[in-house]
């Protein structure tokens, strides 16, 4: 149980990477952009992969009537996410410590993991909602109003994960370093839960 508890205390600390590294990354490459434009999505706001990428993405998107990318103060998520992550890290470390002193069982470890997973899924859902809004809520006076072959207006929702060809752009959306650190941290807590469970079985059989 000691080993499991140490892992449990350690795992949530990996989430601290989200304060430094981006969570998600959307790259936009095109023939005339051999060095692709890129958007780093941090928990507290959007940043260009290169310094002027946001300005240049906005500049291109205005032709098809997309809104400019939101600033940190334009979306409640960028204010709330850092707090939620902070609370979850503190909670996870606390559970680990309590486990170490045998105050709580491995079930708390798994509980933290499931809570974090649910929040992650909710976060992804929210992110996807924004992508839908960003890609479909277009200026009716857009310079270029393009239609699909079936006559419906073309929309420009970037993919949540993976690659989509959008007009002349190849848009690729992937988890970034912050997310990978988070996955590692969460996996550690899951392992902690598993070890705790095995340990408890051993104790039971001994008893």
């Amino acid at each position, binding site marked *: 149980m000691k080993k499991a508890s140490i892992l449990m205390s350690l795992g949530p600390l990996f989430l601290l990477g989200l304060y430094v590294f981006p969570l998600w990354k959307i790259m936009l490459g095109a023939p005339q952009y051999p*060095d692709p434009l890129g958007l780093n999505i941090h928990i507290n706001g959007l940043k260009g992969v290169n*310094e*002027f990428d946001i*300005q*240049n993405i906005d*500049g291109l998107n205005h*032709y098809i009537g997309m809104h400019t990318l939101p600033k940190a103060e334009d979306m409640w998520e960028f204010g709330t996410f850092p707090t939620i992550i902070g609370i979850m890290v503190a909670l996870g470390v606390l559970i680990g410590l309590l486990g170490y002193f045998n105050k709580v069982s491995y079930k708390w470890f798994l509980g933290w993991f499931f809570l974090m997973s649910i929040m992650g899924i909710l976060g992804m859902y929210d992110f996807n909602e924004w992508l839908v809004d960003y890609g479909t809520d277009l200026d009716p006076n857009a*310079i*270029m109003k393009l239609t699909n072959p079936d006559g419906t207006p073309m929309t420009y929702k970037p993919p949540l994960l993976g690659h989509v060809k959008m007009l002349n752009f190849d848009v690729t959306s992937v988890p970034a370093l912050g997310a990978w650190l988070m996955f590692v941290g969460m996996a550690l807590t899951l392992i902690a839960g598993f070890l705790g469970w095995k340990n408890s079985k051993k104790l039971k059989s001994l008893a």
Partner: protein
Amino acid sequence: MKIHNYLMMSMGAALMLVSCGQQNQSSNGALSSSAAEKVYVAPGEQDEYYAFLSGGYSGNLTVYGLPSGRMFKEIPVFSQFPTSGYGYSEETKPMLNTSHGFVPWDDAHHPDISQTNGELDGRWIFINGNNTPRIARVNLSTFETEEIIEVPNSAGNHSSSFITENTEYVVAGTRFSVPIPQRDMPINEYKSNFKGSLSFISVDPEHGHLDLKFQLLMPGFNYDLSHPGRGKSHGWFFFTTYNTEEAHTLQEVNASQNDKDFIAAVNWKKIEEYVNNGGGTKMPANYAHNVYDESTHMATTTMKKEVLTVDPLKVPGAVYFLPTPKSPHGCDVDPSGQYIIGNGKLSADLTVHSFDKMIAAIEGEKFDGEAYGIPILKFEDVLAGQVKSGGLGPLHTEFDGKGNAYTTFFISSEVVKWQLGTWEVIDRKPTYYSVGHLMIPGGNSRKPFGKYVVAMNKITKDRYLPTGPEMEHSAQIYDISGEKMELIYDFPTHGEPHYAAGCPAELLAPKSKKIYRLDENKHPYAVTSPTGSKVVREGNEVHVYMSTIRSHFTPDNIEGIKVGDKVYFHITNHEQDFDVPHGFAMIGQNTSELLIMPGQTKTSVWEPKQVGVWPFYCTDFCSALHQEMQGYVRVSPANSNVELKWSLGE
């Protein structure tokens, strides 16, 4: 067992015979296909080297890739350049100011890349204006001309613009000797009255700013070309001379009589010390110093009024003459700094002087007379060797860093490869035709990159499809990585390249600037946000503070302009994206368009002469909406009361 061995040996011999035979048979085909492979830079790939070729009478500097021979850019230096507005825009007009007023053209000859410890460092490239003597400095991160200094007391600024091995000085020698100071006097009193000035222009190590430190006033010969000493000969500079006869007319004949002219060896370190200790004579002068500031995007002219001159006789041991046969042209120093090569253009042979022997002769005071008080060393005492080339008219030699030298022969149209030390000719290849100078990247430094040599020819004739009487000059690229040279490519060059400098691509490509930062733009008329756009009238001058971004001008409608106004369009490009310039042109404007790089501000003047509504537009196909990138200016009669106003999207 023995039989078996014999069998193997004879089979081996047979195989060798077969393979030799095959090689010989297919040599032509194999060679030409390998030449194609050597110069072929596939789409999307990049060249190994930058080559900077002077434009001669274009006044500019052209940038090519090696080995492809593709031209990347023409950098405007001494000539107005309507393509970008250089020399037309208000910001760049001062770059072409001289003591003779605005001179919109020059004859650009000898580019040289800055060096540290005798190796190319890729910070700047310098080039000389031959006609109205000037030296320019081009920044190699922006590839823009940043500074031009006029050289007083000079005429035909030809033995220029070569740098010392730590870029301490860029050196500019006069080709024509003239009265110093200039005065009204009979031409036929040239002899012993005219002087030749050799100017040492210091280069600020941080910003590259140029300052004419001192001028050496030499006898009235013609100073043709020059090169720095390096390594052991660092601290010396060598100049070829012709017309030591001091002829003032029909030089073609009269300046070609002496069997030997001189290479002047100048110990500049000694003169620098003399000057730093208060030596030299200040002489009134008048020359322009034009500096372009990257943060204000603007050039300013300062007229300088004084120059420090040095009489070589006042600095003992500073200047010697090395007799060199037949009006030498190129004056080249090998990578070790030991050999000084005089390319006697009216002879068949090359003369190689030894630096060590020169020092020994000076120390032994073995002089063979003097010229105007300057000691002449004995030819035999300084001679290291002669290259019996079999060619005619040697002009210029560069080095591959592997102990070989490559010399152009103008009259016999060839490049000759020979060995330093043995003076033996190793190979010769024809050029097409009448080659002037050649270039090996780093060939004028301690560390040449001996893979290619580019020969720059004066005569083209049948090399390309004919284009009437006037044609571009031709250049050839030879692969020099092997024992024999191999002609691998032939390409036309712009203007008349007299000389070139090259360097590995990795020295410049990574630091090449992509944009100018808008937040660092300090132009007094810059508009750094679209809301800052405005139109201001000051008497009959109107200043339009205009910004551009894909795909509109702000403002794009202007009213209240009157006939007789002088309208300044100050245009700031708000793009911060690589390779997205915007252009600007106004109907009826008596100047060129502007091409404004991202983050940059440029100014164009328009003096409307007719009432009406006149359009302007973006001249660079910037975007899908480029054709819509346009605007109107309403011009009213001089006495009208139309209110000054401006707008976008109203």
